């Protein structure tokens, strides 16, 4: 009995889900928070002449820490391809990535000494900000969108959504056979409309298109049984298209930050290299 009880407990512990943000009771959040506070206090106390500068002793210290942090944060791209458990599990690593990334915001900003200009140094800082902000965006959409995504899908999978669309199209095709040429052409255009030919910007903004299906629905007058049926099917298709487009929009929001986060990280490392080399080149 005792063994059974023990096993039961273990299973309960193992099954309670703990996301990467709350990993180990916010261990990395606390570490990063304390480090950020410490950095800010030292910045406050430290009184470099003539003003805070990336080239003071503290400035170089922050710069070195920041650069190493950036390289370590980038390593998540390599690390995530190997899954392990425990203290150095991928979840722990991701948790550290998030909170140390936020810490970088403080360290990088203090390193600038709030001196900005049109130069490679501020370029590196700007790219760093861009990467961090895109990361924050990513965390936010990961927290919010999946639920909305499944609510929108209802019980449907993506494949089922596509199948649904195909079925409606088939029925529409059959139903439109008796229609005269002009109406048939409208339905034909509606059938030819690509539900997925939505540009990146339209997907992100969720702007509703005036596609061929909407045009067909607006122009076909239901004055006989065949066109009434076509009209009903067009309504169903429009509803389906809206659902597909909402899904496309959320998928786009969910994915787009990585298209910024990853390439801009590489750009940041390039700018960081230029920043560091230039500082020592014109020493």
């Amino acid at each position, binding site marked *: 009995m005792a063994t059974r009880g023990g096993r039961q407990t273990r299973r309960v512990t193992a099954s309670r889900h703990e996301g990467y943000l709350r990993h180990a009771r916010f261990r990395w959040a606390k570490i990063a928070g304390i480090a950020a506070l410490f950095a800010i206090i030292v910045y406050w106390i430290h009184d470099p*002449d*003539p*003003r805070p500068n*990336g*080239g003071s*002793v503290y400035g170089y210290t922050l710069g070195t820490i920041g650069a190493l942090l950036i390289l370590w944060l980038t390593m998540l791209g390599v690390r995530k391809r190997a899954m392990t458990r425990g203290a150095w599990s991928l979840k722990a690593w991701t948790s550290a990535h998030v909170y140390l990334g936020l810490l970088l915001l403080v360290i990088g900003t203090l390193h600038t000494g709030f*001196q900005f*200009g*049109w*130069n*490679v140094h501020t*370029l590196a800082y700007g790219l760093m900000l861009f990467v961090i902000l895109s990361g924050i965006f990513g965390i936010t959409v990961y927290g919010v969108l999946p639920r909305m995504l499944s609510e929108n899908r209802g019980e449907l999978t*993506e494949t089922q959504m*596509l199948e649904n*669309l*195909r079925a409606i*199209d*088939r029925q*529409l*095709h059959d139903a439109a*056979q*008796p*229609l*005269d*040429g002009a109406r*048939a*052409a409208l*339905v*034909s255009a509606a*059938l*030819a409309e690509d*539900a*997925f030919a939505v*540009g*990146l910007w339209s*997907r992100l903004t969720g702007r509703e298109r005036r596609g061929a299906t909407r045009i067909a629905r607006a122009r076909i007058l239901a004055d006989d049984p065949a066109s009434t049926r076509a009209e009903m099917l067009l309504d169903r298709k429009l509803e389906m298209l809206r659902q597909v487009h909402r*899904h*496309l929009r959320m*998928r*786009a929001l969910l*994915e*787009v930050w*990585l*298209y910024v986060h990853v*390439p*801009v*990280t*590489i*750009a940041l*490392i*390039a*700018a960081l*290299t*230029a920043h560091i*080399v*230039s500082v*020592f*080149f*014109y*020493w």
Partner: protein
Amino acid sequence: MSFILRTASRAATGREIVRSQRVDADRLTIGRAPDCDLHLPDLQLALLHAEIVQHGADRVEVIARAGLPFEVNGRSTQQAIIALVPGGEVQLGAHRLTIGRDDGGDTLIQVMRIGEVSRAAATVDERNLFSIARIAPSRRATAWLLAILILGAFLVWPIRSFYAPSAIAGAEQADAAWSPGKLSLAHAGLEKNCAACHKAAFVAVRDDSCQSCHKDAHDHAAPERLAKATPVPGLEGQLRQSIALAFNRPPGRCVDCHTEHEGATAMAPTPQRFCSDCHGGLKSRLPDTPFGNARDFVQDHPQFRPTIAGAGTPPKLRRVSLDRHPRQDSGLTFPHALHLSTTNAVARMAQRQGKTGATDCADCHTPDLEGGFKPVSMEANCQSCHSLAFARSDGTVRTLRHGDPQQVVAELRDFFALHGPSRPQAIDGGRRRPGDFVAASLSATYGRAIANRGDAAERSIRAVFSPGGACYDCHKVEAAPGSLNFRIAPVVQQGHFMPHALFDHRPHASQSCTSCHTAPKSNSARDLLLPGIATCRTCHAGARPARGQVKSTCAMCHVYHQEGGTIATTPDRRRRDLDALQLTTQ
């Protein structure tokens, strides 16, 4: 004649199903309408789209019936003749008809759907359909592109142009993006010439870069005294030094104090710490120094010790702390209070000359162009009241010459010699007759007057140089008893009293003169009206001013590479000292 229609379709399993149908007629109607001989459920077709008409045994004609073209062997047309041997292909909407002759001699039409019903049905890449991977630019490509652009523009190009000959156009612009901030206004001309200071790659800026223009910038003191005055660094300082050395940044370079790239303004004053490091405890490390310890203007700075010049040539100099209330003998007797009074005779005289109220400071003290004041002069400032006129003759006012006592004596003598008593005409009428007593009396009086004329000159001379006389009003007069050889004591006016400090009256123009100089209360010309450090501290705080106070670090008043005064270690120190005091002697 018959048409054989053979329709191929595909079952869900992928198996092909072929259906055949025979139509016995010469004409075959094709369209979307169910009553057509060949009914094609294709929305691109008209209800009655086309007809195929048999012409003899070998040919058929395809004719469009709804005015919509079709394709024959890839060509769009409304009418076409097709020979059954070898046959032909007709495309109608999403269907392809292959027309030929079958083994039985009938016209065989094979029908095949070649297009999908809808776009959704045609979709193949289902896995990525909903993802933006299909439409967004590749992450890898974007990363490479950005990285190459940034490294090229901000690393490769500047380094290449650094080593390239300067003749290459635009090369000087390449490293502009490396500049962390604008140069100070004084160095603005070097903005596009980074290599003027950054001469070698990975070598911190060296003094020779600065000295290529600043040729006469000299050191602060003799090197051995500087070394002695520098404190031994603590643990943090040693660490800092060793890090700096490890990174090839030797200490003591010009740029340690003179930081650049701080923005297009005047170069920032050197931070106080660079001075206070040594001067904070100078007395203990350099006991023979004449300077007191100074760390901060408010917290630790000695009372001012003006250098006071006595009247005389060469002037005797002494440095005395203002705490000891030093006095200066300038050779003048000039009470400020008397001249600034609003009620006395001086004020009334000023009013008679058209002034409203009393005389004020600016009546005598004229600012110069360097933040100081021009020396007060008799001609410009005193003479309007202190007239040297002594007589009116020959239609003019006779005036004594200022600044030359011997000349004054000679002039007065000459004047009285020439302007003696007028000679009566009666005594000039030829030979005097005996008994003419009037003439005799006149002659005797005249003779006495002539004889006493020298006395009148002497009396006037003595009067001028004595209490109540024009000279004595302002000057100290020396003379041997009984002698007419009067001498005016030497006068000294001093422009600067603190040659180790800079002071400019102009930024202080918002203050009244008397807020620092207590002239209205000074009844003696010997008073030194310099304000003490406490007066300055009412506005000037040190490096950490309170609200409303003026931040005043060392560099506000002191110059490290000062030319004048005794700070600079130059051979002709004494001359520079005197220059710095701006003495005017008479």
